[in-house]
């Protein structure tokens, strides 16, 4: 595909002026009507702190790191669940289809906040009862202890973190299931039949003929879903998982710097999601070239 240089037209300038005007109006309104006192100078210290000469991430940045960790693990889980369930959705076995259909409908038709509360008060209690994660971690050697801190979260909040990952993973997994199903169904029926007539087993038909073609359809919406995961992780703040939104809310409760903190948080999320968008665009391009 060739990329033409884009020439802006009159409408573009009008829109640009409109957007710029709205932003200016918002700030003007805050300044004059609410007499909001901006205290931007206090924000940077909540991102980095300087203890004894060394710079360390302070809680907003820690929150962002927790958001990233949550999103990565949830994405991995969601992909596994989504692919397995997606393939079950197009399987020949009625039982497998019913299982995955039930899963998708239950999760998709439930407000995520309800799902999160249920899993927090139920799933998390089971995790503590049967696995005793918190005490298990306490007795670990120190290198493993710090590895867990880096890969997951502070060990004392491990159960909460794991609950969050599982919930988010199951939630996003339902959408990925549908993406996988859509991708597989987008491959023409004839491809299955042709490969069947060549003597491939059902598994080989899927693996060698159908999935490679489906992948092209699956990848772009999948990238979108990964970005959604980052945004949806904010909802885990209601169960006290200390990700970016939770840290921001707590900070607002003690400093009352409402607008500064919301704007900072928005920017942090934007950097993260825009980064992922750029990355997914690259992957799409690469796939386009291959074909």
């Amino acid at each position, binding site marked *: 595909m060739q990329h033409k240089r884009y020439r802006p037209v009159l409408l573009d300038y009008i829109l640009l002026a409109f957007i710029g005007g709205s932003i200016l109006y918002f700030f003007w309104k805050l300044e004059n009507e609410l007499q909001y006192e901006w*205290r931007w100078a*206090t924000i940077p*210290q*909540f991102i980095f702190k300087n203890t004894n000469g060394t710079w360390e991430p*302070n809680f907003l940045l*820690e929150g962002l790191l927790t958001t990233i960790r949550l999103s990565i693990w949830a994405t991995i889980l969601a992909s596994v669940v989504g692919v397995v369930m997606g393939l079950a959705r197009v399987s020949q076995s009625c039982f497998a289809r019913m299982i995955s259909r039930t899963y998708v409908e239950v999760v998709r038709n439930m407000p995520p906040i309800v799902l999160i509360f249920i899993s*927090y008060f139920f799933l998390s209690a089971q995790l503590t009862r049967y696995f005793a994660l918190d005490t298990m971690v306490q007795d670990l050697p120190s290198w493993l202890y710090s590895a867990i801190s880096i890969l997951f979260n502070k060990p004392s909040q491990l159960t909460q973190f794991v609950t969050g990952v599982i919930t988010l993973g199951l939630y996003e997994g339902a959408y990925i299931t549908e993406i996988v199903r859509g991708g597989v169904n987008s491959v023409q029926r004839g491809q299955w039949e042709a490969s069947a007539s060549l003597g491939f087993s059902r598994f080989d038909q899927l693996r060698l003929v159908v999935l490679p073609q489906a992948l092209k359809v699956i990848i772009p919406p999948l990238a979108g879903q990964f970005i959604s995961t980052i945004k949806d992780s904010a909802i885990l703040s209601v169960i006290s998982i200390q990700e970016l939104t939770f840290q921001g809310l*707590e900070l607002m409760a*003690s400093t009352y710097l*409402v607008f500064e903190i919301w704007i900072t948080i928005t920017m942090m999320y934007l950097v993260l999601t825009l980064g992922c968008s750029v990355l997914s665009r690259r992957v799409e391009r690469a796939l386009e070239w291959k074909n």
Partner: protein
Amino acid sequence: MGKSVLKAVVALLLVVAFCIPASAQNLMSELSKESVISKVIERNKLRVGFSTFVPWAMKDKNGDFIGFEIDVMTELAKDLGVEIEFVPTTWSGIIPALLADKFDVIIGGMSVTTQRNLKVNFSAPYDYTGIGILASLKKGGDIHSLEDVNKEGVIIVARIGSTPAAAAKQYFPKAAVRLFEKETQCVQELMTGRATVMLASAPLPAFKAYEFPKKLFVPVKGTFTKEPIAFALRKGDPDTLNVLNNWIRIKQDSGWLKARKDYWFEGKQWENMLK
């Protein structure tokens, strides 16, 4: 034959007679072994649930928790000889989280109410608070008494699940009540003039009126309720309750509690630790 039956019955009775007190004793020692306090000692860590409330518990600019409750928790853990773990929790879910064993005790400026007491056990009160009124100059400039608040068209804001939220409905049935998760949001509603008054535990109304004199004011001085504040823990745990109650008594009599309360509530030397 008859004799041996009698012997057997007597033997059985004897066994039972010895067993009853023994099993009662077992039960007691089981209970105290299962109590939160002995688990805390065993784990060497006290997990405390709370929610951000200025100046009870809040984050300073280094990300460390400070405040009156934080002092109380730290002192309690120190006296128990265990480590402390702070578990910040959203206020609306704090009792369910306690019941789900996310932490051992709530030390979060929680007022004792009968409704709450049906779900959790409360220690002896270690502090008292009351509800004060904060009003928006723009929308509630004409409010000068409690009667002025109980009118149609008045919009009261308060925090979800808090005693001010319950008081709003109880004392001012004619006014409309809107609830928010955080006090920040309530204050914001007042500042923008979307709400008339805010009900909140002292000293927040006075602090905020002092901070934003052009927008907020305190129409009725002082507080119009008095509520005991206590630690909350799961039910059926007399041992822990006993330890906490006596700890509070010790700290009250030594004057430690009052000194800490004066530091956080009377002055504002701590303010530059926040931002």
